[in-house]
């Protein structure tokens, strides 16, 4: 029974990673950049939701909505001010360092506004959860909601990218920016839309993460951000299904590793699995192999 319970907890954590990784992978696919500030958008989303609930006394659903709106706006502003001017820079490292600068900026703004002390997050899920197998297997409401939310997001996003006009535009831009522009696609708008979606997902992930692990500090987003990045690479960066699978696997490995091997070594285990996967499949589980041109 304890194994199944660990497995479900792993799925829940993995779902959060998957939602964050979706944001990473979409942004990478379209802008070819590692958005290191993505983890900190999660943290901002969680703070906004917390304040909406405690200070403004709003319902959890309204709080999530506000967090999503704020993060979407934040994502668009960050892209416009910090990343867009560097889109055609001579080195792709330039925008990476700027993203790190944005990450520091968000952390320190949060530090000034909310303080360094951990704040306890109110869970947005009021439901007590399931009790199966005569009470020996308990699944918390947060776990169930997180997993369901992840599946819904995954389905909606796949549909959006495959079937709708803006989704097709996204795929076109990620394939070839110049050609997409010649076909009359608004490249700047599409990239901004991608950042908006990624940041909105980050807000949702932040609220779900802090509902399960209710301690919020300005650095809360950093480690899940890195893990989600690992998940995105694990699944093959740029691939939406890959991010989903990578996130889930990572969460399960981490929780099982923590339970059965060593709690301090869980992170090392996650990274070791990543290394092994990349050595066998150098572009991740579902990544496309790019043929080098001479």
């Amino acid at each position, binding site marked *: 029974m304890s194994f199944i319970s660990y497995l479900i907890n792993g799925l829940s954590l993995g779902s959060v990673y998957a939602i964050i990784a979706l944001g990473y992978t979409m942004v990478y696919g379209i802008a070819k950049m590692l958005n290191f500030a993505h983890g900190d958008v999660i943290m901002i989303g969680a703070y906004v939701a917390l304040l909406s609930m405690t200070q403004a006394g709003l319902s959890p659903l309204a709080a999530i909505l506000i967090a999503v709106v704020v993060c979407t706006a934040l994502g668009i502003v960050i892209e416009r001010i910090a990343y867009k001017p560097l889109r055609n820079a001579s080195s792709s*490292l330039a925008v990476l360092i700027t993203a790190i600068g944005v990450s520091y900026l968000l952390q*320190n703004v949060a530090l000034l506004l909310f303080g360094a002390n951990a704040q306890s997050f109110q869970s947005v899920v009021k439901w007590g959860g399931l009790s199966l197998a005569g009470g020996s297997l308990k699944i918390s409401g947060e776990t169930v909601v997180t997993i369901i939310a992840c599946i819904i997001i995954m389905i909606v996003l796949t549909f959006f990218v495959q079937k709708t006009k803006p989704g097709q535009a996204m795929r076109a831009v990620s394939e070839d920016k110049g050609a997409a522009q010649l076909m009359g696609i608004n490249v700047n708008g599409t990239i901004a839309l991608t950042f908006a979606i990624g940041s909105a997902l980050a807000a949702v992930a932040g609220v779900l993460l802090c509902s399960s692990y209710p301690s919020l500090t300005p650095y809360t987003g950093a480690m899940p951000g890195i893990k989600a990045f*690992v998940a995105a690479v694990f699944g093959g960066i740029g691939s939406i299904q890959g991010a989903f699978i990578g996130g889930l696997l990572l969460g399960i490995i981490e929780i099982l590793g923590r339970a059965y091997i060593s709690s301090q070594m869980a992170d090392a285990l996650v990274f070791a699995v990543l290394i092994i996967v990349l050595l066998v499949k*150098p572009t991740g589980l579902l990544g496309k192999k790019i043929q080098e041109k001479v």
Partner: protein
Amino acid sequence: MGMLKKMSKNTRSNLITYGIVIAAFLIMQTLITTGSISSLLEGLMVPLCIYVILAVSLNLVVGILGELSLGHAGFMCVGAFTSAFFSKCMRDVITSSLLRFFLALLIGIAVAAVFGLIIGIPVLRLKGDYLAIVTLAFGEIIKNLVNVLFIGRDSNGFHFSTKDVMDLNMEPDGTVLVNGPQGITGTPKDSTFLIGVILILITLFIVTNLINSRDGRAIMAIRDNRIAAESIGINVTKYKLMAFTISAALAGAAGVLYAHNLSTLTATTNNFGYNMSITILVFVVLGGIGNIRGSIIAAVILTLLPELLRGLSDYRMLIYAIVLIIMMLFNWAPKAIEWREKYFSFGKRKKEAVK
């Protein structure tokens, strides 16, 4: 001046870099002996040397080899812990601090180089962002392993464990040398500003000589076009590994300096985790990828900046972040470069690129 003119452009440029380092050292040393700078700033001199060495060594991988490494702090961690372990064991055996430090330095460098080689073999098969994430992964693994390592010594010899101190099963006379998350305490404080500057000069000597050698040109050929380099018979794996291992060894030297500057050595995200690796990368990119002198200047400015802004207390890291973003935009955005060339050319004749 006649002699300066006869030298090649590279040699002259290198000599200027050495000159800057030595001049900066002499000025700071004079200021320290006359007591005109705060003790806070004085305490920052060894860390400054550490950052400069790290920035120069990472530039070898990022700028010269052209691969993004996010795990540089891992090699520093290896160098720091092996050398601190050695120094702690030998504290009473070797009493000359200079000799002890020198031996610790050799050990730290050697072990870091071995790690660079072992990690480099699989990592360098990958490309681009995948390579970056795997270096990050190795860096984190090293940090995590150090945190679960317990080593003790008693009359029967050394005891190892990955659980806790009790698990070492030592005799009552045993002492704990490496205490897991609490790290190593009581490392002799052997690092000095002078040693730091000498290490910087040695690092510069190694890196600049490598760049201007046949091997260095092979490494840069791989960076510019791997397939073309391979086709003219350059052994890609060998040269990639060479650059990566030398870089790791130099990071190990910085780690030795770091370990012997503190009485307690622990591995946290901020000193040996990805935060540190990223901090070093910021120095390299801001100073100019592939530009050794730029790395030194960026490392010095960005290390001093938070201290100089200390008067602004809570706002200093905020300002640091904003300055970083603005400097990156100003240095790298194509529009900003165009604007700079238009208004700040100062009679510099533009070089026409050969198409």
